[in-house]
C-alpha cells in the first residue's frame, strides 16, 4: 500500500532526477532568479497544456490549440488599437467558441476529436491567414504597454506571468476537484455510459471541456502575442506537440479519467527541464532531437502509473 501511495509521486520523481542531473552538470542552474525566469517563460505553453488536460482527461484530444493561439495573436494585434484591453474578451470568446464547436462536432456528429479538432485548427489557421493579410503584424508598443504591460511586471520577485499561471492553475484545479463539473468530467472520462445513465448532461460537459481547452489556448496565445508584441498566422507553431507531451508526461493518460491539472504542472516542468538540459548539457545540435526522443521515452517509462491505465495498454 505504501508503494501505491508512492506511485502518485512518480512524475515528481522523474522531475527530480532530471533536475539533479542538470544541477550536477552545472550548479549555476540552481540560481533562483534564473530558475524563476525559466519557469516564467514556459507559462504560455503551460496554460495551453492546462486546457489540453481537460480534453485528455475526458479521453479526447485537442489538436486545434496551436492554431487557435495563432489566430488569437493575430486578433490581439489587429484589434488592440480598437478595443484596448477589451481585446482579451474577444480572444477568449473566440477561443471558447472554437473549442466548443470542436466539442459539438465530436459529441453530436461522432467525429473523433483527433479529426474534429485538427479540422477546426485548419479553420482557425485560414481565419488567421485572412485576418493578418498574410503578414507578420506588430503592435503599437505604447498601446501594448498601456494595456498589457503589467503582465510582464514583477511583484516581490514573482513575475506576474507566474502569478497568472498560478491563478489559472488554481481555478482549473478547483474546477476539476471541487465542483460538480469536475466530478462530471471524471465520470465521463472513466465511464461515459454510466455517466449518461446517471442523468448527467454528458454532451454538454464534453463540449464545455473542449471549450475550456480553446479558452486556455486563447489565453496562451494572448500572452504570447503580448510578449512578442505582435502576431501572425504561424507564430505559435511548436506549441501543439509540446503541450500534448506535457500533459501525457505528467501522468494524464489518453484513456481519460486519471491524472489532472496538477499532473500537468509536473509534466510541463519536465518538458521545460528536458529542454533546458539541451542547453545546459551542451548537447550537439544535430543530436538534440534524438536525445529529446530518448529522454522522453525514459521519462514516460518512469512516470506513468501502469496500474491506472486500466486493462490493456493501447
Amino acid at each position, binding site marked *: 500500500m505504501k508503494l501505491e501511495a508512492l506511485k502518485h509521486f512518480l512524475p515528481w520523481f522523474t522531475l527530480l532526477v532530471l533536475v539533479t542531473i542538470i544541477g550536477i552538470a552545472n550548479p549555476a542552474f540552481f540560481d533562483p532568479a534564473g530558475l524563476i525566469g525559466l519557469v516564467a517563460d514556459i507559462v504560455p505553453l503551460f496554460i495551453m497544456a492546462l486546457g489540453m488536460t481537460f480534453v485528455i482527461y475526458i479521453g479526447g484530444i485537442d489538436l486545434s490549440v496551436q492554431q487557435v493561439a495563432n489566430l488569437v495573436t493575430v486578433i490581439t494585434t489587429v484589434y488592440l488599437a480598437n478595443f484596448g484591453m477589451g481585446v482579451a474578451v474577444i480572444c477568449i470568446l473566440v477561443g471558447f467558441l472554437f473549442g466548443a464547436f470542436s466539442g459539438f462536432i465530436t459529441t453530436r456528429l461522432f467525429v473523433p476529436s483527433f479529426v474534429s479538432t485538427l479540422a477546426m485548427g485548419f479553420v482557425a489557421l485560414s481565419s488567421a491567414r485572412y485576418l493578418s493579410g498574410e503578414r507578420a503584424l506588430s503592435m503599437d508598443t505604447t498601446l501594448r504597454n498601456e494595456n498589457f504591460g503589467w503582465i510582464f511586471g514583477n511583484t516581490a520577485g514573482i513575475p506576474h506571468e507566474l502569478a497568472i499561471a498560478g491563478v489559472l492553475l488554481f481555478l482549473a484545479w478547483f474546477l476539476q476537484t471541487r465542483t*460538480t463539473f469536475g*466530478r462530471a468530467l471524471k465520470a465521463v472520462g472513466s465511464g461515459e*455510459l454510466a455517466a449518461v*445513465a446517471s442523468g448527467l448532461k454528458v454532451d454538454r460537459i464534453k463540449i464545455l471541456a473542449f471549450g475550456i481547452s480553446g479558452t486556455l489556448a486563447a489565453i496562451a496565445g494572448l500572452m504570447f502575442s503580448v510578449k512578442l508584441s505582435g502576431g501572425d498566422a504561424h507564430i505559435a507553431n511548436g506549441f501543439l506537440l509540446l503541450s500534448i507531451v506535457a500533459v501525457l508526461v505528467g501522468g494524464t493518460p489518453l484513456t481519460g479519467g486519471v491524472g489532472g491539472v496538477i499532473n500537468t504542472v509536473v509534466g510541463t516542468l519536465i518538458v521545460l527541464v528536458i529542454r533546458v538540459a539541451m542547453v545546459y548539457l551542451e548537447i550537439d545540435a544535430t543530436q538534440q532531437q534524438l536525445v529529446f526522443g530518448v529522454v522522453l521515452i525514459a521519462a514516460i517509462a518512469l512516470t506513468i502509473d501502469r496500474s491506472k491505465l*486500466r486493462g490493456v495498454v493501447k
Partner: protein
Amino acid sequence: MYELRKVDKKFPGVHALKAVDFTVNRGEIVGLVGENGAGKSTLMKVIYGAYQADGGTVTIDQKVVRFHNPRQAMDHGIGMVFQEQSLIANLSVMENIFLGYEAQFVKSGIINWGAMAKAAKEQLAKVKLDVDPATTTSKLSFVQRQLVELAKVLTLEERVDGDLVVLLDEPTSVLAREEVELLFELVRELTKRASFIFVSHRMEEVLELSDRIYVMKDGEIVDVVEQADADIRAIQHKMVGRDVDTQYYREDQQKPYSEEKLVSCHSVSLGQRYKDISFDLHRGEVLSLVGTEGSGREAILRTIFGLNCPTSGHVEIKGEQISKFNARTSVGKGIGYVPRERKIEGIVSGMSVYENMTLSQMQSYSSAGVLNTAAEKSLAREWIERLGIKTPNEFKDCGGLSGGNQQKVVLAKWRSGGSDIILLDHPTRGLDIGAKEDVYDMVREMSSQGVGILLVADTLEEAIGLSHTIIVIKDGMFCKRFDGKPGGKPSLFDLVHHMI
C-alpha cells in the same frame, strides 16, 4: 485425471486461493459453487493458464504441468467458456471459433476461408446452431453467441488427443430456461469426450447437472458433495456461513400497493423492438416484465428511463407526459435505473464509492456548482452501513468491489437521491445467494416504502416471488397480465406457456 494439489494464489491484499485441492475425473461434470468473490473464477483462470498459481501443483494423468498462458492450457485440452463472453464482436463466427488456431487452414501463408467455413459449420452443428459461419459475431443474439462460445471450446475435440476439460464459468446466468436445457443436453452428450467444471449461482442447475459439487468459501474448498447426497440448504449454509431462508423472496412481507400511478405507458412502440405496450406502475407496486431473451423487456425499461425514444405512443410519469426522452429528465422525475451491464452503465470504475453514489444527484450536494464533499461522504457512510456494502471505506474504487456490492452502490445512488421509481434490469445477475437475498430485501423494503419498481428479473422464480403484477411480453408485444398477490401467484408453467 486432472488434479490440483494445494494450489495457492495471492493478489495484492487478497489471498484468493488457499491450498485448494481439486480433482476432475474422466467424463465427470464437476460443479463449483461459492459466494461472490469466493475464488471460483480465479480457480478457473488458474486451470486455464490465464493466471499462474503461486504455489501447489497441477497434474494431468499424474504428469505435472505448468501453463504460462491459455494457449498452453488449450494445447493440453483445457478450454473455457467465460463468465463474460469472450467472442470478439467484429470478427466472423468462424474466425472466433478458430481464433489462434488458424494454422490448420493456412497453406503457404494463405488462409483458406472455404475450408475454415466448412470446419466451422461442423463445430456449429455440434451445438445445433445454424448460422452462416461468415456472419459477423456482433449480429448474433446473446444466446447464439453463448453457443458459438461453446462450439469454440469444442474444437478441442479434434485438436487434442486424449481427454478434454471444459470450464464453464456461469454460462447459464444469461440464458433462458429452454436454452439452459439445450446447453445441459449438449454437455451431457459431450461427457463421452470431455469432463466439465460448471460454475453457477443457480443452485438448482448445479444440482441438476453435476456429478460432484465443490463448495468454495473465502478461497478455500469447504466441502465436496456427491450429487446424490446434495442438499441445497446445506450447501448454501456452507457457502454463506449461515442459514439461508428458503422464503428468501419474502412473499409474506408483500404489501398491497396504492392506487397512485407513477408510470403510465400508453401504446408505446419502438420500431420493431416492442409494439403497442400499455401498462401502469403504481406506488408501492413491483411489476415484472417477463419474456424470453430479446423479447423487448429491456428496451421498455430503457425507454422509460429516457435512454431511447419511442417511435409512437406516450409515457406519463406521475401524471406528466414526457416530451423529451433523455436520462436527465427521467432522473429529475425521480426514476432510477439499475442496468444489466452494471460495470459499464451502473458504476463508474475509477471513481470512489461516494463519488458513484452522488453522481446522479450532485446538485443536492453542492452549492453554485461547488461540491460539499463532507456531506457526500457522510451520505456514503450512511448507505454503506444501511445496505451492508462490503468496502473498507467510502474512498475505495468502485471498480474493485465485487458485483454484489457494486449493485448495492447503484441502488444506494438512486435510493439516497429519493428516487421513487426504480427500474431493475437483471438486478441479481451473477450475484451469490447471500447478495441476492440482500437485493430481495431491498426490493421489499423499497416497495413497502412506496417505491414503484419495474423489474426485469433474472429468473422466473424471482419474478413470481417478488412481484405484485407480472406482464408477459412476447416478441415485443403485450401478451398476458397476471396478478401476483401472495397466495394467488401464477405458476412457472403459466408464464412459460405464454412466453413461447
